[in-house]
């Protein structure tokens, strides 16, 4: 049995995706995924979207500390 995929929110950072999911671009084409765990951009300024490139730190992106997922 394949383990269910998970999406996990990291404080002031990206969403980490683990497990077997298809990531599709705006035209519905699969985005190449080369690693088991990927980080999806949550701040909107990554230069390699849909993936995170760490730039959220440079723009001081903050997530909602009282939100349901960080």
């Amino acid at each position, binding site marked *: 049995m394949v383990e269910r995929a998970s999406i996990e929110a990291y404080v*002031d950072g*990206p969403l980490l995706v683990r497990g077997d999911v298809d990531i599709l671009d705006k035209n519905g084409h699969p985005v190449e995924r080369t690693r*088991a*765990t990927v980080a999806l951009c949550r701040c909107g300024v990554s*230069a390699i979207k849909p*993936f*995170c*490139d760490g730039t959220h*730190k440079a723009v001081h992106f903050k997530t909602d500390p009282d939100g349901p997922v960080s």
Partner: protein
Amino acid sequence: MYSPELVRPVRFIAPPFTDRGQVSRHLLHALATPVALADDELESFQAALASALASTTDIVRDDDLQLTLFVLYGLAYGSVVDCDERWEWNTALIAGRASIESHFEEHLRAVVPQPELPASTAEAVAAALFELTSHETGPSLARFLAKKATVEQLREFLVQRSIYTLKEADPHSWAIPRLTGRPKAALVEIQADEYGGGRPERMHAAIFARTMRGLGLDSRYAAYVDNVPAVTLASMNMMSMFGLNRRLRGAIVGHLAAFEMTSSIPNRHYGNGFRRLDFGPDVTLYFDEHVEADAVHEQIAGRDLAGALAEDQPTLLADIMFGASACLTVDGWASETILEAWTSHRSSLRVPLQGFSETGMR
């Protein structure tokens, strides 16, 4: 019955580098001698070592001691000096290594700023590590590479990096069996990605070797040891010391977190520097890979590795923060040394590279 010599033939192949003083000279001579016949060389090594440790003023920039420590750790890693493998656990060499480590660690603890300690919760530790690494001054070297570096300087940069990067991830992997539970799973998740997720050609060290070859460099380990200054060896030796001493597992974990947190953005600059000089994807893949990979790793390293370790074992918190600060401090010195040389139009290397004529050849 097999004799040990039949099972493991005694061998010594002269390494592709030379000694830097009495201590490393006697060590290399000992390694070239059959273990059973090396007593005189070992005595000379121990005497030279005691004298060097008593007189060194800055062990981080001490060529002889850093090369000696690098060779001693190389017995555990392999690919440094090709000699009788029994030397790895020779008691005289282990004692020598421990005495250098003792001075090296004491020096680091005296000069590395100890950050204020956060609460021992995963989120507080991750936040403190991200805060600490946000003050890092390193990107000036990254910006120089992106905007100004010549092909010779790009080549020097790869040579400087090769001491660690051709063994990328290995120093931190020593910590895997020394952790349990969440931090262990987190470290394995990061390291599995470093090692290519089961695909040897995607192993980060292998991708870096292709980058080196793309600039005409020799990608065999230790080929450029003679060229790099002591501080570059010290950066690698510090990781090996943290990784190979179980009591320093907090420090190696903090080191990895700081390393990952200061990687994505500089790697984008490095890649841009190579693109600016018309190098293609075969050369820039290493840097582009790290922009994406380390944006994942820094999250896992901050909260799930360092944070969870501090939560599970609060007594390790100070060493986690020390390891992170030591990473920033020592790698900061290494980067400053390179940048100072380049901005005053000198080579950053101890021995400049030979045999490259730069007339736009790619």
